[in-house]
């Protein structure tokens, strides 16, 4: 199982702050976006593709999300732009 974490308005779009899912082989970025689109909504899939949304794997911001390799027990967080003052 891997854990997905949705922050800010993405939690509203997902309808929850966290989700877990299992898979047999490591997933790449396109697999994850497809899973979000199929299991949640096209709107959520589109939202995480926005380059302004940062992605963190196990607490480390990814500089190149296309290089993602998601394994079981990983935590993947989707971080929309932070609020200002």
């Amino acid at each position, binding site marked *: 199982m891997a854990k997905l974490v949705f922050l800010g308005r993405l939690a509203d779009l997902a309808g929850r702050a966290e989700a877990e899912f299992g898979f047999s082989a490591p997933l790449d970025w396109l697999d994850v976006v497809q899973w979000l689109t199929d299991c949640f909504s096209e709107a959520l899939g589109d939202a995480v593709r926005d380059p302004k949304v940062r992605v963190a794997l196990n607490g480390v911001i990814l500089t190149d999300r296309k290089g993602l390799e998601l394994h079981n027990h990983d935590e993947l967080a989707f971080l*929309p732009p932070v609020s*200002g*003052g």
Partner: protein
Amino acid sequence: MLDVRLLTQPFNPGAFIGPFTNAHPGLGGVCTFVGEVRGGGGVEALELSHYEPLTLPGMQALAETASSRFGLMGMLMLHRVGKMYPGEPIVCVSAAAVHRRAAIEAVDFAMDHLKSNSWFWKRELRAGNWHWIEPRDQDHADLRRWG
């Protein structure tokens, strides 16, 4: 001394600032900023969410950067998360230094970065509905002041 904390309950800034000041004998000045949840505009409540693996480490790194950039003796950085109401403190930053300008500028620097570049997401409750607060151009302009 760097004292950086996320707080989940209402806090009294004075209860932290006093001990922080006392921990730095020989200081020349302490500058403190306390931000509160603004009232008005129909705001009934504010809720801050954060991401545990990034938010506190990011604040710690910011305090370290401010401390070395301005040559501080110490920095206190407190930030609320969770639901809060107008008039409640949301943030407190205090800098202790040998000279006043370093303390004042360090607090200004830390606040600009906390507001624009730290991992917090805010939403306001107005007329019974929650509204996410979006980044503002002014926040980015504030950050550019520091190069």
